[in-house]
């Protein structure tokens, strides 16, 4: 069912000081309140889509545009007990995975801009038996190893170490219990180290 929107003129500056959650609440009444949210999350989410899917920039932008439309359409469903960022990441994540599985977009490898320093955080991860491998990897090698990991492992590593989300936030984004998230992360780190070891060409 499509509802046509009545738009009233609104001063966007009035929304600049509002928190994400306040803006989400206001968006149900005034679509202009959603614009600052789009501005705040556009860059982060675009990078996130590319990190987990390897989509090219144009495809990632299409996915993100659809994700924002989904979010706006379901804004009344936003649970105020959650952080808006977790909710928005969840919608973006689901939209990305859905597009990824449909094979709509052309894939490149996971790597994105060279200045993306988030990958370096994965190198600093200390996990028993994996630290020596990780220390010997370069940022570009991390990108290649991530690209070889299964979808779930790549997602949790990106969320935990690149997006720097807490277990609780990852739990809300991936809609899984926190304990399960912890298990996924531990398993993903072990797989990361194993994949790196099995591909000596990646280790300098």
């Amino acid at each position, binding site marked *: 069912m499509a*509802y*046509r*929107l009545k738009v009233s003129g609104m001063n966007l500056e009035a929304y600049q000081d509002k928190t994400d959650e306040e803006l989400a609440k206001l968006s149900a009444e005034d679509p202009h309140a959603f614009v600052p949210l789009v501005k705040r999350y*556009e860059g982060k989410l675009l990078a996130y889509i590319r990190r987990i899917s390897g989509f090219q920039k144009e495809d990632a932008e299409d996915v993100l545009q659809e994700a*924002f439309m989904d979010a*706006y359409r379901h804004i*009344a469903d936003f*649970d105020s007990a959650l952080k808006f960022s977790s909710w928005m990441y969840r919608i973006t994540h689901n939209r990305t995975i859905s597009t990824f599985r449909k094979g709509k977009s052309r894939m490149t490898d996971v790597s994105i801009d060279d200045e993306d320093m988030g990958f370096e955080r994965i190198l600093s991860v200390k996990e028993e038996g994996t630290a020596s491998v990780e220390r010997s990897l370069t940022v570009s090698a991390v990108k290649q190893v991530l690209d070889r990991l299964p979808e779930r492992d790549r997602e949790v590593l990106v969320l935990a170490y690149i997006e720097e989300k807490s277990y609780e936030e990852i739990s809300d984004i991936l809609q899984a*219990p*926190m304990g399960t998230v912890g298990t996924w992360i531990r398993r993903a780190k072990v797989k990361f180290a194993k994949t790196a070891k099995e591909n000596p060409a990646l280790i300098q």
Partner: protein
Amino acid sequence: MSIAENFEDKITAGKLSAPIPRWEIILKRAFIWTALSLFVVLGAVSAGVLAWFLFDPSDLAGETGKFNLIGKFLEDLPLFWTIISLASAVIAVWIFTKSPRGYRFRVAAVSVACLVAFLALGAAMAFGGISDKIESMASSYLPVYRKMAQPLVQKLMKPQEGAVIGKVDKIGDSFLELTDPSGSVWQIKLNSGIRLPKQVESGACLRVFGETSTNSREMVAEVISSCPRGVRLKMSKPSDEIRTSTMRIINYAPSMVWLRSNS
């Protein structure tokens, strides 16, 4: 053009569809929670009836042989309630995990919590006498359920093996008059020293073991117990199936007794 600018353009051009209204979301959530509550209640009620079957005093007293808990579980009627209870648990857990914040809990933990809740609520209902009423309603209004109860009645009504069930019509000092599921009246002779179940009154369902007469509906009682739970005899309208099978048994019984006494 950035996505934010694109979004603003859509607002200005009036090309943006309005969000799903709040009432629609509330309605959807109310539906989810109502469905969840219904399955929890159904599961608890079923668990209650199951507990009521398992704690049948006539079985537990051991009047009619050894009590076998697993065997009791696998009988048609308790199994019916077990299946309803487990199916309700599975659906309730599934709905809960799909609810807005249900993903925060492990499915195993939710399942255990659900079963514990069913057992606690069910036990409370069984001991509060609600389960008896629910089972009676199922017997009255569910033809499938009533049909499932028939093999149990047939199993208990075996005059050739010295087992009769029926409703008490009259109680005397040394006799009982029972009407069996086919509507036939049995004269039960009570020897001195025989133990009767507590509160035997007219209309109560009894199970009598003893020696049947070869040529009439008479019996000398050796053991008398209450009917097992789930046996609800409706004498006014005995089903054709019960009537036919019981009459066949009764007509066959004298020759069986004769054969036994001559072997």
